[in-house]
C-alpha cells in the first residue's frame, strides 16, 4: 500500500499535486491513499482523514510538510501536525538541537519517502534525512540548496487540460495562495503595466491580513478591474477565463507554466521557459516506479 501523508490538505498547489499523484498511482494499479488534516482532499482522490493513518509493514509512505524527528511520531501524526501549527518562538533553537541529536535510523518495516512538493523548507537543517529512504524533488534547483541523501527529481503529474476553445482578451489571472511571499500585489501591478484590462486572482486566502492591507487598497486604485475568485477546483475553467497568467516570484517545479502551455495561455513570470518537451505523465510514472522500486 502506498500512503501519502501531508500536514495540509487545504486547496494549495502541493495538495493539488499530491491528489494528482494519488489519482495517477491508483489509475495505474498502485493502491494509494492520501491522508491529511483538512477535508478538501476527501472527495478528490482515494483519501482519508489524518487520524486514520497507520504505518504498516510493507507500506511505502510518502511524507510532505511533516518535519519528522523519529519514526515513532508516525503513530500519532495528528498531534505532531497540530503542535507544528502552533506559533513557537523557540522553533529555530529546537531545529538546531534536533540537528545535533543522535542519528536516526530508517525503518525496516516500510519505505519512507520525503516529497518536497510545495515545500522548499524540507531541505532545511531541521530535516532528519537519515529517517528517509529517498527524497523527492520537483525541480533540479532544489538539489542545489542542500546535499540531501539519495534523491530523485521528478515534476508533478500534469492534470488533464485542453487548449481553451475561446480566450477572453486582456484578462490576466494571478494563480496561487494569497500571501505576501507570493507577491500577489506585484503580479497584479505587472499585469496592469502590460495593459491588461482585468485581473482575476485565483488562490486560497492564506493570509487575509495581507489581502486586506495590500490587495483591497489595489481594488480601489483600479476600480472594477480586480476580482477575487478564491481557489477554484476546476482548473480548465480557470485557464479558460484568462488570456495571460502573471507570477511575481520564482517557483521552480510549479506546474503553472506547463498548464499555461497546455491551455494556450500566455505566461509571464521570472522563471525561464522550460526548454524541450515536458515529461508526459507516463514518463513521470516510470520515474516514480523506478525510484520506489515498485
Amino acid at each position, binding site marked *: 500500500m502506498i500512503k501519502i501523508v501531508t500536514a495540509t490538505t487545504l*486547496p494549495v498547489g502541493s495538495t493539488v499535486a499530491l491528489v494528482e499523484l494519488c489519482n495517477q498511482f491508483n489509475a495505474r494499479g498502485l493502491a494509494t491513499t492520501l491522508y491529511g488534516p483538512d477535508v*478538501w482532499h476527501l472527495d478528490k482522490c482515494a483519501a482519508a482523514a489524518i487520524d486514520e493513518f497507520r504505518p504498516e509493514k510493507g507500506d511505502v509512505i510518502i511524507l510532505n510538510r511533516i518535519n519528522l524527528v523519529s519514526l515513532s511520531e508516525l503513530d500519532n501524526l495528528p498531534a505532531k501536525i497540530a503542535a507544528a501549527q502552533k506559533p513557537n518562538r523557540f522553533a529555530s533553537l529546537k531545529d538546531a538541537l534536533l540537528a545535533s541529536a543522535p542519528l536516526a535510523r530508517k525503518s525496516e518495516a516500510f519505505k519512507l519517502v520525503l516529497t518536497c512538493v510545495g515545500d522548499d523548507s524540507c531541505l532545511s537543517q531541521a530535516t532528519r534525512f537519515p529517517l528517509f529512504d529517498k527524497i523527492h524533488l520537483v525541480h533540479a534547483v532544489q538539489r542545489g540548496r542542500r546535499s540531501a541523501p539519495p534523491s530523485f527529481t521528478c515534476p508533478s503529474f500534469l492534470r488533464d487540460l485542453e487548449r481553451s476553445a475561446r480566450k477572453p482578451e486582456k484578462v490576466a489571472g494571478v494563480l496561487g495562495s494569497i500571501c505576501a511571499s507570493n507577491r500577489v500585489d506585484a503580479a497584479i501591478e505587472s499585469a496592469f503595466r502590460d495593459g491588461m484590462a482585468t485581473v482575476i486572482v485565483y488562490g486560497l486566502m492564506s493570509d487575509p491580513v495581507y*489581502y*486586506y492591507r495590500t490587495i483591497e487598497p489595489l481594488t480601489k486604485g483600479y476600480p472594477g*478591474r480586480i476580482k*477575487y475568485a478564491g481557489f*477554484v477546483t476546476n482548473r480548465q475553467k480557470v485557464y479558460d477565463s484568462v488570456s495571460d497568467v502573471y507570477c511575481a516570484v520564482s517557483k521552480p517545479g510549479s506546474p503553472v507554466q506547463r498548464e499555461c502551455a497546455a491551455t494556450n495561455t500566455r505566461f509571464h513570470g521570472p522563471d525561464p521557459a522550460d526548454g524541450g518537451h515536458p515529461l508526459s505523465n507516463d514518463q513521470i510514472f516510470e520515474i516514480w516506479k523506478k525510484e520506489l522500486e515498485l
Partner: protein
Amino acid sequence: MKSFEADFYRLCNLLAAREPFAFNRFSDGELYILQDKELILDVQQVKVGDKVTEGIYKEEDHKRFNPQEHSFFRDRLVDAFRYTKKNYFKGLSCRCCVGEENFQWQLDFHGGYDENFTWANLLVNGNYGKFIREMYPLFSEYKTVFVCNEKAELSVMPFITKDFRVGYNAMVNDYGLIQTMKEWIDENNVRGHLFLFSASSFSKLAIHQLYDHCDLNTYIDVGTTLNAFMGMRVDRTYLKSYWLGAKGKDLHKICIW
C-alpha cells in the same frame, strides 16, 4: 449531537453538489423582533425593549422595529421562522451567544424541533476561515444574484451576474422588492442560480418567500461575511480578527447547540 463544523460542511456539500437549499439566519436582532420587542439600532442609540445603550450603527445598518407600527413585518418574520420544507435550514441564535433563556424561547416559540435547525452563526466565528477558503470559491460555479445595500461595491466578486439593492431598514422600506424578485425569477425562468443576501432582516423574509416560490434555486443569508470584498466596513469583531489581525477569540469560537 449537532456539530458546528459538520453543519457547515453539510451546506458546503449541498452547494458543491448543486442541490438547491435555503439557509436563513435568525440572529439576536430577529430574536428581539420575534419577541415583539421594540428595536432601534442607529447612530444615536441601541434600544431593545426598554433597555437603551449608546448607538454604534452606521446608516446602512440602521434598523427600526415598532411592534405596533410594524406588526405586518413581524408576522412575516414569524412565517419565515416557522416555515418547514426540505432543505430549508434555519439558523438560530445559539445558547452560547444569546443565553440559555433566549435559546429555549426560540425552540418553544417555534413549536416542535425541526431537523433543519442549525446555527445563525454557522458562517462566522470558528467557521469563518472555512467559509472564505472553502465555500466562497464554490460561488464561482453558479450564476449568482446578490441582494445587498445600495452602498455596496460588488465588482471584486467575479461570479455576480445580477444584483438587487436595498436601503436602510429594508425589512420595512423595501418589502416590495420580494415581489419584484419573484417576477424576475418567473419572467427569466431563473433556475439553478445562487442568491446571496446581505440585507439584514429583509433577507429573512425574502429567503423564506423566494424559496417557497421557487425551490430550484439556492438562497443563502451571508450577512456581513463578504464585507471585505464589498467596500463595506469590517468592524464586527470576527471580521476585525480575520482581516485586520486584531486580537480576539471569535475565530476560534465553536458555537454549541
